[in-house]
């Protein structure tokens, strides 16, 4: 086997870039994207609904995520627990995730079992049974999840505070997981209404990536999903976020060993011409150990354990470009904030070097190839592009536009968006442990 492949490989093929999805729109409006990857005998099936925390209203933060949990509680045809059991006993893994703009369900499994996952997803697109007892128990599970991710995790708590401060009227204000009070106030009616409004084929994208044949699979997909009637067209008008007029700061105090600082700037999303320069800026600042933030804060100044910049390029509405640092023990949070501000100021006054710019472009391009090594990540990118309204075709256009960005473009967007009046600073101030010795917490040993 190895020898034969060895001979073939000497015929150097052009590097394969994007593998085109087969696209179909069903009669009920559901978009289907199928990507044939014969590399390994596996596939991922993903159903993406255009609903996330941005589609929630004040007082019901976390409803989309709560509904995502309830989607595993069974239908008339497949009662509680049977969904995951069927997938598991067929060697598959299933789960789901909710974001600000989407809710997605997936099954990773052997390619010859794809039909099974499709049948289960088609069934719960319409047939979910919402039971009050199940809801009461699951609400407690979600509250545990909130404790784990936000209440007891300093970084999670700080990023939540940052968004709450940066967005005042847009739903990006609240966390995907929701607030405790909102989780407690939710009712089964709320869930039912959310389900009826958003879980319909015309609000969903089905993606299958793996060792499949699109022509063979499409008739099965049609049989399973086309009988599902088209649902309402959900209204997508949301409260817009007014322009920020001046710096905002928030301080979070809690028991912790190390502090952190985050600085967020409101920026446009993928739909803006400035998105390409912002994406490259993110890469130049934080991709790899040669990136600016790592070299400056971690390597030279040694005031941060880790640093980064994150740009919300693939979001339905304009989001944040934020910088973060986990402050080294012994360093002052003010010093780190100053160091970050200096890096930002430098972007206003100096152009990125040719080397830095080319490196950032190469990193973005290479990551597109590496992304295709995983069916799951490949499908996720397509699902996210479709769910935020960008459309998967934008990938190709994206790379072309990235290649055209100049150092001056990057300086221009830095000057335009990374400004003093547009920034929100979030700082975690660690409080000492209630115990006397913070570095070695009081322990009880032996049998109490």
């Amino acid at each position, binding site marked *: 086997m*190895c020898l034969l492949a*060895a001979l073939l490989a000497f015929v150097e093929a052009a*590097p394969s870039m994007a593998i085109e999805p087969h696209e179909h729109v069903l009669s009920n409006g559901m978009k289907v994207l199928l990507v044939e990857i014969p590399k390994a005998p*596996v596939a991922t099936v993903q159903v993406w609904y255009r609903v996330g925390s941005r589609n929630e209203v004040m007082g019901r933060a976390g409803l989309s995520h709560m509904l995502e949990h309830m989607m595993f509680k069974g239908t008339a045809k497949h009662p509680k627990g049977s969904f995951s059991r069927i997938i598991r*006993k067929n060697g598959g893994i299933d789960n789901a*995730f909710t974001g600000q703009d989407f809710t997605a369900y997936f099954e990773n499994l052997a390619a010859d079992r794809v039909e099974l996952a499709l049948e289960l997803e088609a069934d719960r697109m319409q047939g979910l049974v919402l039971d009050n007892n199940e809801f009461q128990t699951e609400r407690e599970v979600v509250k545990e999840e909130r404790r784990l991710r936000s209440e007891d*995790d300093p970084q999670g708590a700080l990023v939540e505070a940052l968004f709450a401060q940066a967005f005042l009227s847009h739903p990006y204000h609240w966390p995907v997981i929701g607030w405790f009070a909102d989780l407690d106030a939710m009712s089964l009616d709320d869930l039912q209404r959310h389900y009826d409004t958003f879980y319909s084929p015309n609000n969903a994208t089905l993606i299958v990536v793996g060792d499949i044949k699109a022509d063979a699979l499409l008739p099965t997909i049609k049989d399973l999903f086309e009988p599902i009637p088209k649902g309402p067209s959900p209204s997508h008008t949301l409260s817009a976020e007014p322009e920020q007029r001046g710096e905002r700061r928030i301080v979070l105090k809690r028991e912790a060993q190390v502090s952190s600082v985050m600085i967020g700037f409101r920026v446009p999303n993928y739909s803006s011409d400035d998105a390409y320069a912002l994406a490259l800026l993110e890469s130049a600042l934080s*991709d790899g150990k040669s990136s600016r933030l790592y070299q400056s804060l971690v390597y030279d100044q040694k005031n941060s354990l880790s640093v980064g910049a994150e740009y919300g390029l693939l979001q339905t509405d304009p989001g944040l470009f934020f910088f973060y640092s986990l402050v080294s023990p012994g360093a002052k949070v003010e010093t780190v904030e100053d160091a970050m501000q200096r890096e930002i100021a430098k972007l206003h006054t100096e152009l990125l070097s040719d080397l830095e710019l080319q490196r950032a472009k190469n990193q973005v391009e290479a990551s597109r190839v590496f992304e295709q*090594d995983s069916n799951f990540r490949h499908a996720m990118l397509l699902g996210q592009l479709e769910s935020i309204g960008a459309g998967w075709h934008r990938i190709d256009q994206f790379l072309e536009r990235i290649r055209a960005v100049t150092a001056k473009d990057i300086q221009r967007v830095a000057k335009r968006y990374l400004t003093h009046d547009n920034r929100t600073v979030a700082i975690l101030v660690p409080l000492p442990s209630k115990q006397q010795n913070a570095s070695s917490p009081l322990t009880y040993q*032996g049998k109490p």
Partner: protein
Amino acid sequence: MQHRITRTTHRHSRQLSFCASAVLIAGGLLTTLACLTGSGLAADISPAKITTANGMTVLVVEQHFLPIVEIHALIKAGSAQDPPDKAGLANLTASLLEEGTATRSSKQLAEQIDFVGGSLAVTAHEDFTTAAARVLKKDVDLGFTLLADILLHPAFPSQEFDRVRSQILGEIISDNDDPGHVAMKAFNHLVFHNHPYRWSVNGMEETLSKVTLADVQHFYAKEYLPNQVILAIVGDITVEQAAALVQAHFGTWKKGPTPARTAKKPGAIGKKAVQFIEKDLTQSTIVLGHGGISRTNQDFYAVTVMNHILGAGGFSSRLMDSIRDKQGLAYGIMSHYEARAMPGSFWVNLQTKTETTNQAISGVLAEIKAIREAPVTDQELAEAKSFLMGSFPLRLDSTAKLAQVVAQVEFFGLGFEYFAQYPAWIERVTKEDVQRVAKQYLNPQHYALVVVGNISKAKIRH
């Protein structure tokens, strides 16, 4: 070191991260990647194996679908080889490989790999260390050049030594903000008392502070030898091309005497051991368990099936069903049987609100007892086996995963027939085997229990 903060919430994050990087979790050990389909789905994995003149084991798997090459070196030395008073030495040595060579500074190494959008990563584990380069096919020569440079010619500059050691010391302090990390650290100290597995890979504040540059240089000279290295190469490259690149870049590496291994098997706990750690938190993080088995234990496959039914089987496991789905006590709960070169450990971990700490611990103990006292049902057995057999290809579906698995199969001496025989080994596990290994390897009396959280409020009775 860089970590991404995302605004996405998962129903069960442990499972999602599982999908994204299966083999990386649980210290890259084989427990997490052990299975092969019985239904004719197996990827046809037959690595070409070459032993070089200087004793390096080279394994090549050709995959020509994408223009990617993964070059993955496994060095047979990890934190288990740390001297007890210098715990953290293997990890510090590994961390310094990327921080300067005879001809490249730390920054030059970073710039060269970043410029082509590739990655270079060195990670120490308990039993071994991995150093991996990931590049596009067109950059394969650069990938070999940089990987060979950091493995053969590290310079260990003293300013980098000081900086990196401070950085790791900072990370050890920062890890105390993660209750799960604090709990596991305490648990390992209880379970692996007197054994090198008791300390974290990155060491402890008091021991890492004692490590000197000379210690690092000595550790490197003794442990980093071509005859101690398994090099797995996976991707868009032929066996001939790979062999030529290995010769060109690693051919001058001098072999040396195989380092002696003195560590004995970890002993059993012998009694119940409890540690409660007070922190101002809303949840109790609970870890309960004891010693385990080695990867080469003949009961490995029966234990794998048993553990799947008990608590490793995701949404269909007994612990998940009882603690999460029926009682709503936790978001994530899982049991782990981590098999290492020497016997590893078994543990269950979960987080629950302070008020339900006792209820959750009782629930875990009840399930451990139940799987010992009565045979599992035919349905549970059949479903566990079909999952373990059927999910195998998912664990090999990217070049990075495949390179890690192939290197570890070689490291543990499983032989490449492992890929073909695995389904048969799982298939022959019976209900009686499951109960036998539950009785033999689970102990609801002599266990270690660690709770991190608001201890005074939790009023723990266990």
